[in-house]
């Protein structure tokens, strides 16, 4: 029920201002964009839940989260490994 999936707007539907076609990994479906503020454009990424776009995906925030995760991640893993491999005795 919490199921929300990120999808890319690929087409606005001409006869209905509140509908757009969203694509998720090659699967396309018409959804409502009526809950979003401001104009919606092809190329925008949105969170889709039961046929409605609930929120825009903020690409810079997504990148920031990933950077944080990766910062906490592999770089640290490399450090741990280096520590394990070093031997000062």
């Amino acid at each position, binding site marked *: 029920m919490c199921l929300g999936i990120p999808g890319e707007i690929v087409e606005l539907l001409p006869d209905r201002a509140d509908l757009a076609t969203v694509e*998720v*990994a090659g*699967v396309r479906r018409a959804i409502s964009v009526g809950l979003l503020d401001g104009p919606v454009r092809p190329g925008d990424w949105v969170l889709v839940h039961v046929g409605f776009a609930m929120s825009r995906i903020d690409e810079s925030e997504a990148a920031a989260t990933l950077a944080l995760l990766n910062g906490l991640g592999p770089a640290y893993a490399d450090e741990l490994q280096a520590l394990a491999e070093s031997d000062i005795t």
Partner: protein
Amino acid sequence: MTTERTAGWAERAVREAGGPAGTATREEEVLLRIERARGRRARVREERITLAHGAGGSASHTLVEAVFVDAFRNPILEPLGDGAVLEVGGGRLAFSTDSFVVFPLFFPGGDIGDLAVNGTVNDLAVCGARPLYLSAGFILEEGFPVADLRRIAGSMAAAAARAGVHVVTGDTKVVERGKADGCYVTTAGVGVLERETELTPSAIRPGDAVIVSGPIGEHGVTIMISRGELDIEADLASDTAPLNGVVAALLDAVPGVRVLRDATRGGVATVLNELARAARLGIVLEESAVPVRSVVNGACELLGIDPLYVACEGRFVAVVDGEQAGRALEALRGHPLGAEAAVVGRVRAEAPGLVLLDTAFGGTRIVDMLVGDPLPRIC
């Protein structure tokens, strides 16, 4: 809200299960208790058939065991393989049947006719047999267009030619409008077993490799999309195909094939659960090794279903001696229908009867028998 009631069925269910258990102090006690409960004899609790009984999952299995095996009891039936192996006149035959109720009848990649021929051919092939002859029974609804019937028959002829089999007998019945949905087809087939090897779950050993012949879930998702109810579009076609050629290629190259199953209703997960239970061994799958097309993944994520449970109609699962896995892959990949074959898991002695999945994330979880029916009438 005024008066209050109790749910009688629930009280009964608890009584029949032997009452509420004593408090468990350890998780292991509970897990043991559950395995005992699961091992008990199958009983159908419902009074009426529900769609879950047709899904190929746990309800289907319970129905088959509690109603049909119970009625027909005999040693040839009981292994409940994809086909029956018969000793006739000094030789061995495989015999199988399948019914097709797919909706819609025509879909990208094929139609009910293709499924009807390929389905039975494949059941025979995975028994290790060379499929030879098919029967075809039709139940037609009054008002069904003859042009559509010709189209279906044409597909069946083409599919039979491709598989190298002949439709040699059949039957047709017509029922009043509303008493069937267009056209239902049942095929039965015989094939000859020319190899000595017995393909059976009891041949499975710890260390064996689990192989799938190609990307999973394409048929089920194609049908779901073709129904039009979910308003989804995608570039996808059913994977329906006759597998006897690629199976023969595998059996010719690899003596250590333990068992084969085609992954139809209930998908790869269901097949593996059946094998794990029958062999009383554990199976561990590697999530990142399972081939799935991204569009199938996308549709499944969108709808909240797991591709491991989605039906295929042109893919099979092979369990082979671990040391021969490389040879098996080579043999499969040399055939167009096995080009994307992959080792997806291993058999082990631990956790017998359970299928576990090592997730791409680095965790582990169970892949259990399918419950309910995410996609009715897909084949």
